[in-house]
């Protein structure tokens, strides 16, 4: 079983690609001997990050989303990048219940933070956003 792996994906911004990214992340995570709960948490965190790129990063504009999945020993990392609107105040954006969209709950970052062990957000207004999330799991390889 490989203890190092890395998959790069890129796809157009669109709601139909959120599920595909999520499923790919779950299949990638299944290389490790994870619980169903861990896999579910990864799916939710990935779904939030990709949804944010689609909804907030690009809005109704077309754009490309990059999604990199990597495994290094017991550390699973997921990086989501968009070249969209960017976030002016990252600290504020990460507050629970904060949303610039009145229809949304402001829970995306809360879920990413709760379900992963590390979360780092880089963003520049007008340039785009990169969300880096990692989860550490006991290094017991499956299969």
């Amino acid at each position, binding site marked *: 079983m490989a203890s190092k792996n890395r998959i790069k994906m890129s796809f157009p911004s669109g*709601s*139909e690609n*959120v*599920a595909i990214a*999520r499923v790919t992340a779950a299949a990638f995570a299944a290389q490790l001997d994870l619980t*169903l*709960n861990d896999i*579910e948490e990864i*799916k*939710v965190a990935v*779904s*939030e990050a990709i*949804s944010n790129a*689609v*909804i907030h990063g690009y809005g109704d504009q077309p754009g490309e989303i990059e999604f990199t999945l990597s495994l290094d020993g017991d550390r699973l990392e997921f990086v989501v990048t968009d070249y969209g609107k960017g976030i002016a105040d990252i600290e504020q954006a990460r507050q629970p219940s904060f949303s610039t969209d009145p*229809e*949304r*709950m402001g*829970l*995306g970052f*809360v*879920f990413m933070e*709760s379900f992963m062990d590390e979360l780092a957000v880089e963003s520049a207004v007008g340039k785009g956003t990169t969300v880096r999330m990692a989860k550490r799991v006991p290094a017991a390889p499956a299969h």
Partner: protein
Amino acid sequence: MNISTQIRQDVLIVRVEGELDMHVADEFRQRIDTALESGVRHVLLNLKGVTFVDSSGLGVILGRYKKVSAAGGRMLAANIRPQVARVFELSGLLKIIRTFGTEAEALNSL
């Protein structure tokens, strides 16, 4: 996502299947809102077939909850799977939407 709705007295029963994410959020919202127009009071969500939910799906549910409670009704949920329940819990929705093991138990509570 698959949705079917049924009205029993003053309760709209919504049975959902599939994954509740941003891709289906609009349709999910519209289907419930249209069914609500028939003038029911309460809403019971049967989530037995829901295998995934994220904040986009929860947002739709919270929105419907607000609508229903503003009109004096209650919103209940039945048959939530454990992994979906965790997401509900973390979001705080479990504090405002009571959940039950079965539709019958939920209906009895009204």
